[in-house]
């Protein structure tokens, strides 16, 4: 099953895999592994871009009435920061993980539509470059990552920034739909023989649910973007109140996409953590059925909560109340996952490799983010806290403390598989602790800033407010600590890529199919597959007595 010669090279990454040599093989690749890596590398690149933008924002906010950047520059920067982190970092990161891992985890040779997979990546990259071109092409967008109308109408923002924003997101949205549908079709049609749907690893299950969310929610964004482009370029009046259009209509369309989008961002992270925790606890996943069911529940419910982003727009009592209830309800399946992860660790034999540290911190930080989210579902509290720094705290706890920590855990976990080398555990632990301190120091205080009345998207705040000033100052210091920890992470990845310990096929003694091919996998992925009777084919190989008992029945 493995070629041991391949794992004992010293320097060059893939000396024995000629298919991956040379830039041209990457540019023309339709191999899901290469495409996955390109997605992830792009995401990491834009993560740095977004981080730099964030640091500029934090320096500006360090002191009251600061003039590090002008208000117009700041407004472009926060717009680009949000747009970058969500569309140019989050989406390609989750797509990269998914297209790399899903075929391996189901024992397939590639995605169902390999060329479409490549197209999805290149469309994304083109859209991303188009967005950043705006900096030199007439001005970056400055209407926030959510571009509310009528501020985005030509009368208020005449430079082409919003047009760049709209076109690049439209282009990337098309690529996303292609990748989403590719993931679904792959899992439905290409599973290894014997792998029933209930045997797919939970990461795959979550990737498929994410695929559904992408296929059904991105078109809503595309439609809204076309309408605002028409308003700006063809003089239509969809969102222009002075001609009878509706500003609230934009919000409805945007959030009908926007809410499923945040679940698109987090579900793969849930999947990563759900793969890591059992392996490092040496126990099977507890309550896998509820875990799968709660994923589907979240998928459905995510289409029914969007107006909770609009509670202060004057919606009418019944509408408000329905969405308050649905938003409270969606917390339940999310909570089920947290209990499941803890129960999986319970009674286990837990080893704290860096991946597991990040997964554990994820649980705590995501819980905080989730609870601040539930706070918003309680509408009168939302009426106080929406559009304040409390929201900024919430989104960074779920997206940075949540999603990013989970994906970093995933990188520590799967880096050996992808590159054939281990990441340094020493650097990893430094990275982890500094990142936990830096992240929480930067963002926890923002809950308090919101409580003290600081609104979002402000480039400065008044003198004479010592608590607000103090928290902002402290947050900026911690932001630099956070940035330093990210630097350590990148250093770890670069150093380990060239000099890391050789990994072997299955350094973590994990159980899913991707661990039974070599590290890195050959182009065809597998020449032979073990029999698949459960979610943990490799565990079954070492526990034949248990398999005999269970074959034909309900498996783990």
């Amino acid at each position, binding site marked *: 099953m493995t070629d041991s010669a391949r794992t004992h090279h010293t320097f060059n990454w893939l000396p024995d895999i000629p298919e991956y040599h040379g830039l041209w093989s990457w540019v023309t690749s339709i191999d899901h592994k290469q495409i996955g890596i390109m997605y992830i590398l792009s995401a990491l690149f834009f993560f740095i871009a977004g981080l730099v933008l964030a640091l500029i924002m934090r320096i500006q906010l360090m002191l009251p009435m600061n003039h590090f950047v002008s208000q117009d520059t700041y407004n472009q920067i926060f717009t680009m920061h949000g747009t970058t982190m969500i569309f140019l970092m989050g989406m390609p990161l989750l797509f990269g993980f998914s297209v790399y891992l899903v075929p391996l985890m189901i024992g397939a040779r590639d995605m169902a539509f390999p060329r479409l997979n490549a197209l999805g990546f290149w469309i994304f990259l083109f859209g991303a470059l188009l967005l950043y071109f705006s900096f030199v092409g007439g001005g970056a967008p400055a209407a926030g990552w959510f571009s509310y109308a009528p501020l985005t109408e030509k009368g208020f923002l005449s430079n082409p920034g919003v047009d760049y924003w709209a076109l690049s997101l439209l282009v990337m949205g098309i690529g996303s739909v292609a990748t989403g549908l590719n993931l679904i079709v792959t899992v439905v049609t290409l599973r290894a023989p014997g792998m029933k749907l209930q045997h797919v690893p939970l990461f795959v299950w979550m990737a498929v649910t994410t695929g559904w969310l992408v296929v059904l929610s991105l078109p809503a964004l595309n439609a809204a973007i076309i309408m605002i482009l028409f308003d700006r370029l063809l003089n239509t009046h969809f969102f222009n109140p002075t001609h009878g259009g509706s500003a609230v209509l934009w919000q409805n369309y945007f959030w009908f996409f926007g809410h499923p989008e945040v679940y698109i961002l987090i579900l793969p992270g849930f999947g990563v953590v759900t793969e890591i925790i059992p392996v490092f606890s040496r126990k099977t996943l507890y309550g896998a059925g509820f875990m799968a069911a709660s994923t589907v529940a979240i998928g459905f419910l995510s289409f029914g909560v969007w107006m909770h982003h609009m509670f202060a727009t004057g919606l009418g009592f019944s509408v408000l109340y329905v969405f308050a209830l649905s938003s409270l309800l969606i917390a339940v399946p999310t909570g089920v996952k947290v209990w499941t992860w*803890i129960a999986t660790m319970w009674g286990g034999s837990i080893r704290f490799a860096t991946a597991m540290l990040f997964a554990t911190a994820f649980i705590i930080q995501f819980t905080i983010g989730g609870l601040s989210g539930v706070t918003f579902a309680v509408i009168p509290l939302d009426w106080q806290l929406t559009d304040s720094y409390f929201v900024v705290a919430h989104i960074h706890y779920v997206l940075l403390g949540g999603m990013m920590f989970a994906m970093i855990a995933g990188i520590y976990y799967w880096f050996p598989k992808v590159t054939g080398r281990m990441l340094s555990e020493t650097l990893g632990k430094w990275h982890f602790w500094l990142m936990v301190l830096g992240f929480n120091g930067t963002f926890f205080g923002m809950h308090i800033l919101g409580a003290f009345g600081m609104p*979002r998207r402000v480039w400065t705040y008044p003198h004479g407010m010592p608590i607000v000033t103090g928290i902002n100052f402290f947050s900026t210091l911690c932001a630099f600590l956070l940035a330093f920890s990210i630097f350590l992470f990148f250093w770890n990845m670069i150093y380990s890529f060239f000099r890391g310990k050789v990994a072997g096929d299955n350094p973590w003694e994990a159980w899913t199919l991707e661990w039974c091919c070599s590290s890195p996998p050959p182009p065809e992925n597998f020449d032979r597959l073990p029999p698949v009777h459960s979610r943990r084919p490799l565990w079954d190989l070492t526990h034949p007595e248990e398999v005999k008992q269970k074959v034909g029945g309900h498996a783990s």
Partner: protein
Amino acid sequence: MDLSYSQISSIFHFATEQARTIVWLQYINLIVCLGFFLTVVGLLAFAIIKFRQRPGDKEPEQTEGDTKLEIAWTLIPFLIFLALGVLTFIVMSSVNPPVGKRQPDIIVIGHQFWWEYRYPRYGVVTANEFYLPVGADLMLELRGADVIHSFWVPDFGQKMDAIPGHPNNLFLKPIRKGVFLGQCSEYCGSQHSLMRIVANVVSPEEFYKWIAIQHHVPNLPTDKISQHGQELFMSKTCVQCHNIAGTKAVAMAAPDLTHIATRKTIGAAVIENNVENLTQWIINPQQFKPGCLMPNMRLPESEAHDMAVYLENLK
């Protein structure tokens, strides 16, 4: 700018009946959230310590689940959130009852980047700083003149968006006197950050006094400097945007200046209101609030000074 005369606004202070209702809901929510959080952290801490891998550990028992436990941990949070839902209903109904046919007491209009306040019952129009009588059951109507803004004074209990083409309502019953600060809370362009709200809650007698001042048409200036200032004001482009009652300046596009001398601040609480600041503001407001819609007037200092003296006499 010195804001020390105002309260530190926070969502835990309450200056209205509505805010007081919301504050106890906040505390309940905080307790629920803390409860969940401590449970998660406690269980995790226990698990991390008790079940840490030790040398010689065998493979642990591979428990797959316990349906009863899983149902319990689904149902119990569900019931807790349902309870929160019931509380939400109660507080919502009390804080934001149906408007019905009720006419607003104050109409608040958000502009880029200032606030206009109209009192329909008294025929008063003013800008940026407004007065409320303590103890009165007030209803505000919120409108947007250009883009979406949001009216938020944390001590008053809730924010509400001011959306062009889509008027909204806000109920306020002030129960405490003082000066309360707020800010625009929906990103509205360049100077979203410097679009502050100054709400003065006063006794009913003082409120009617203030209304009377607002009704009073300022006398013509008597000293030479103010007269010169008025001539300059009326002859320049100021009249195209601003209104001063009793003069030929009747435009409504910018803050009403009829009683500007009674305000503590200029430019929606960006700088203190005095002759020196106002002079500099008139010369070039962009130096204080870059991106605001009043252009760089490029006036010589002496002209601006005279205009400022004139305006500071408009009480």
